[in-house]
């Protein structure tokens, strides 16, 4: 089987960035691509949701929130104890890994689709659900609960941030319009999905290359953490997917979510709420190490995890 071109676009961006090419997408284009990706993922998920009983999903949602909390609480002592990071940095990085990356999810979607592996589209809902808990836990780890955190502002920031609004909006629209309704806008949101993803990954490659520069300053631990933590997360995510009786594809997607690290919502929230943490640390890990690792190696691995779990235990 030939290699998926969207991954080659990521490689192109990485290479161009590391060679210090002048290639750069204008910020407005990057935002446009992000908006289309978020809405596409939301719409697809929403159409599926329309065919599900929401009540049945409630336990899954609660479990997934627990997953986000657990991942953050696992990452924190690793960073604090082994990595010897100061408290704010450890808390901030932990929050990145307890949360999720839409880009990684989109690549996993494309990967499963190209292999013909079925999955529950409503997992897009977990993408929404997983964004927030890690932030709250991370801030609490950094500051304690009672202290001078402006929680109201934080919740406003999280719930009304661009990515949550677009994902949730897409889910609701897909859910309300149903498959026939959505058909009329398929051209843009589904037909162009992989092309848009390709351009998005080109820019992600450039961004990742820029973060790697930061890596050199922060030593080996961060590289190791950026590879090991996704593996831990994905293993737990896969186990949860299996326990929730998701399909093989759904299990792989939940593993991917758990193994991915945020690079949009969490860093913005941390910057405002835990400003004493160094943003170059967390972005070097999440964008410079974990995102490329997941795109190249993680996602196929997580599918293999899901397959062996389902194969051996059922």
């Amino acid at each position: 089987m030939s290699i998926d071109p969207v991954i080659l676009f990521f490689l192109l961006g990485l290479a161009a960035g590391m060679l210090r090419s002048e290639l750069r997408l204008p910020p407005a284009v990057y935002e446009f691509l992000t908006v289309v990706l978020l809405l596409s993922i939301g719409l697809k998920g929403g159409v599926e949701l329309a065919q599900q009983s929401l009540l049945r999903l409630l336990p899954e949602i609660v479990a997934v929130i627990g997953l986000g909390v657990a991942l953050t609480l696992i990452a924190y002592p690793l960073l604090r104890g082994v990595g010897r990071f100061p408290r704010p940095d450890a808390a901030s990085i932990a929050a990145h890994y307890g949360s999720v990356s839409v880009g990684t999810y989109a690549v996993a979607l494309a990967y499963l689709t190209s292999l013909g592996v079925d999955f529950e589209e409503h997992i897009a809902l977990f993408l929404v659900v997983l964004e927030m808990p890690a932030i709250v836990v991370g801030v609490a780890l950094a500051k304690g609960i009672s202290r001078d955190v402006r929680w109201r502002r934080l919740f406003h920031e999280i719930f009304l941030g661009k990515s949550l609004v677009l994902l949730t909006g897409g889910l609701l629209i897909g859910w309300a319009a149903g498959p026939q309704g959505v058909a009329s806008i398929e051209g843009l949101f589904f037909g162009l999905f992989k092309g848009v993803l390709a351009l998005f990954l080109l820019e992600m490659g450039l961004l990742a290359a820029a973060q790697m520069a930061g890596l050199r300053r922060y030593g080996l631990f961060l590289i190791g953490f950026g590879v090991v933590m996704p593996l831990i997360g994905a293993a737990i995510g896969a186990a949860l997917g299996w326990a929730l009786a998701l399909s093989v594809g759904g299990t792989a997607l939940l593993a991917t979510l758990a193994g991915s690290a945020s690079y949009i919502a969490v860093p913005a929230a941390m910057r405002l709420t835990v400003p004493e943490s160094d943003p170059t640390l967390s972005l070097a890990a999440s964008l410079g190490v974990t995102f490329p690792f997941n795109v190249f190696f993680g996602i196929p691995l997580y599918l293999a995890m899901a397959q062996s779990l389902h194969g051996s235990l059922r």
Partner: protein
Amino acid sequence: MNTTRRKLVTIVTEAVLEKELVSVMERFRVTGYTVTDARGRGSHGVRDAGWELGANIRVEIVCTEDVAGNLVEHLKENYYRDYAMIVFIGEIEVVRPEKF
């Protein structure tokens, strides 16, 4: 033409702070402000990325010397340590002193 002296406070800082600075300025009762997108380099390294986290803004405030002093004091106390930020103050003249 009759003109009056005022101060022009210019802040260059992280784009992610825009909303927060707006509310700070409201608290300090500035009569207005102007924001442009910017990029640059300083002690926090190069900041020229296409996304909010790596981008800068440049904020200008025309105000009285008093307001300028208070504002800069507040920024120094609350943001200088943790954020990429510079602030500088210039002398300017305006035609409608009551406006600033």
